């Protein structure tokens, strides 16, 4: 795992000291809020509905046990004993006081963490596949690329005031677990026919007000050209992206309005200019970074205890079925720890749970943890011999929900329970759905299902790419929820289609029940997944389930018209 260099350490400490001075001047009145707001946002500090919120970067979602313990300490000492893991692999504290934030940032710096560039119109935390370095389908670990981009983009003088925020995701696997096609830039490590490793570069993806799937701007980019090419994209965007309207300022709009071919030719021209000046110094840096991400010292051990437990314990079997993914080594597994306890808040972990996760990672996962964009925690390298012990440890911490990938494994943004931008609540909706399908005992029967909920059009809950997406809106002073169907966040990425008029909070759950009931009737062989079924039969049966009176009303209307 990458450790801070002396340069990183000095830089982060200097930023904390600088911010401490800015906070002091704000409290004394020497700085107005207008002057202070952009400074606090540069350091990840928002003002939300009930309190300040500090967003802490977890680069490419990777952290070690010491860092996780420090997050737990911060939660206890300066917050309300929990943290919220987000869809961009960050963690948020919902209740810090302004005067405490510099101390929190110092405590983060003690474990090589910070909150820099977690807000503002800059390049945000670079995210990556949460199974990076462990996945069985991986061409190459994407984290050295993400770390290189982190170093390059941090405080990059040219890209601190972009037209809008800019998000980059990297994957090294065929299966896209990093939602690369919903990012401003998506990078996919691939191997060419000549056996050379490089990148497929995607550009112009994004959710929010105008959801778009990224397009391939470069089918294959040699790896040594990464920085000049990315810099060329950013430079073209910085100069040509719209600054007249914040809702049209993301690069996806530039791609849409300019056209992919025209934009590509501008980027390629800029790339040629950049390449001529580019000394290639990053390749030496990359080599050092790659060393830091060398695979841990795996140890082959017999897995009898795991096999015996599978035979003897049905709860364990069920948890293994949902939570254990294939590791690149057959004697290891990747454990996804669900932060979606039925009735809990998606993505939240208490300080006690964070400490338990840190202990388990230290003991059983080569000291590594990951945060997934699906708001779960990953133990990436667990020997199969240790899986029973990990399960027991998770159970003791209330973290052994066997629901990963199922209907209660819901992504939900904080919504109007916390967020100042939200138009409706998300969390109670997620809680109600999880509780209801748990009561019905249908979760296992339904199988793979991605429900994603956003509390406003900005789509932090990724609702556009949910198999079932839910968008909370304010309709004349009442919470109202629109449903989209058929979205997909994987390599088959698709934007869901709006099913029809929204539902009140009370009507939403019955509507979802009708939708799921219809799926269970329509699916083939009792095993076809919801998304496959939707793709096969189309939206009509699901729409008629959601709006059972609508067909009759249309028929009556046509009859009256004919008469």
């Amino acid at each position, binding site marked *: 795992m990458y450790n801070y260099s002396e340069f990183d350490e000095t830089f982060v400490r200097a930023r904390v000291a600088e911010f401490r001075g800015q906070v002091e001047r704000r*409290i004394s009145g020497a700085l107005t809020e207008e002057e202070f707001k952009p400074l606090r946002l540069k350091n990840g500090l928002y003002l939300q509905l*009930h309190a300040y919120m500090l967003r802490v970067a977890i680069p490419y979602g990777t952290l070690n046990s010491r860092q996780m313990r420090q997050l737990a300490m911060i939660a206890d000492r300066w917050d309300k004993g929990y943290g919220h893991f987000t869809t961009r692999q960050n963690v948020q504290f919902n209740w810090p006081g302004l005067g405490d934030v510099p101390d929190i940032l110092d405590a983060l710096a003690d474990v090589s963490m910070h909150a820099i560039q977690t807000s503002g119109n800059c390049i945000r935390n670079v995210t990556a596949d949460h199974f990076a370095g462990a996945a069985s389908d991986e061409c190459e670990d994407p984290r050295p690329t993400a770390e290189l981009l982190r170093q390059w983009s941090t405080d990059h003088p040219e890209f601190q005031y972009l037209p809008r925020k800019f998000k980059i995701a990297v994957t090294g696997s065929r299966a896209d677990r990093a939602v690369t096609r919903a990012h401003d830039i998506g990078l996919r490590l691939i191997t060419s026919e000549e056996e050379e490793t490089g990148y497929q570069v995607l550009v112009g993806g994004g959710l929010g007000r105008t959801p778009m799937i990224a397009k391939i701007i470069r089918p294959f980019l040699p790896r040594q050209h990464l920085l000049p090419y990315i810099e060329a994209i950013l430079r073209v965007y910085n100069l040509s992206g719209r600054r007249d309207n914040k809702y049209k300022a993301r690069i996806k709009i530039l791609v849409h309005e300019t056209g992919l071919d025209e934009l590509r030719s501008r980027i390629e021209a800029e790339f040629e200019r950049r390449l001529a000046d580019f000394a290639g110094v990053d390749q030496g840096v990359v080599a050092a970074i790659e060393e830091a991400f060398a695979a841990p010292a795996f140890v082959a051990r017999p897995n009898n205890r795991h096999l015996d437990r599978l035979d003897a314990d049905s709860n364990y079997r069920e948890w293994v079925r949902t939570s254990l993914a294939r590791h690149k080594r057959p004697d290891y597994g990747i454990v996804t720890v669900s932060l979606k306890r039925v009735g809990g808040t998606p993505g939240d972990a208490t300080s006690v749970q964070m400490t338990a996760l840190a202990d388990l990672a230290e003991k059983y996962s080569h000291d590594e943890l990951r945060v997934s964009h699906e708001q779960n925690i990953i133990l990436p390298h667990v020997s199969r011999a240790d899986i029973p012990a990990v399960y027991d440890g998770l159970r003791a911490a209330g973290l052994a929900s066997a629901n990963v990938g199922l209907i209660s494994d819901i992504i939900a943004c904080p919504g109007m329970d916390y967020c100042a931008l939200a138009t409706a609540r998300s969390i109670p909706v997620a809680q109600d759905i999880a509780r209801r399908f748990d009561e019905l005992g249908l979760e296992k029967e339904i199988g793979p299902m991605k429900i994603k909920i956003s509390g406003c059009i900005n789509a932090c809950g990724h609702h556009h790419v949910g198999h079932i997406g839910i968008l909370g809106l304010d309709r004349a*002073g009442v919470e109202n929820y629109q449903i989209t169907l058929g979205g997909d966040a994987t390599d088959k990425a698709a934007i869901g289609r709006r099913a029809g008029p929204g539902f009140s909070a009370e009507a939403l759950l019955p509507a979802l029940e009708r939708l799921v009931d219809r799926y269970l009737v329509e699916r083939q062989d009792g095993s076809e997944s919801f998304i496959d079924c939707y793709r096969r039969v189309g939206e009509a049966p699901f729409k008629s389930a959601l709006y059972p009176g609508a067909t009759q009303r249309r028929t009556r209307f046509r009859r009256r018209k004919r008469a």
Partner: protein
Amino acid sequence: MPRKFTPKIITSNHLLRGDTIYLSPSGKWVDRFRQARVFTDETEATQALAAIDRQRNIHVGAYLADASVSKDGVPQPAHFREQFRDTGPSNYFHGKQAEV
């Protein structure tokens, strides 16, 4: 035609704590919506909002929020957003609801 002015209160967030505060009839900042002064005159409300702009090292981002008044004269939020600000989140017993 301009919209008819409806009753409003002045609310903001405390600079240090970040929590919601309300301007009371005595001109002090208080913690709960029900303690807020209700403005029924637009000019008065606008002038009061401009006046508290001078207290910028106490609060952040003051604005006028719609209010209704109960039969016994207690101001209440007219919109669910203000209701949540006045009580706290629905997933934990945190925020104002926990301070009662």
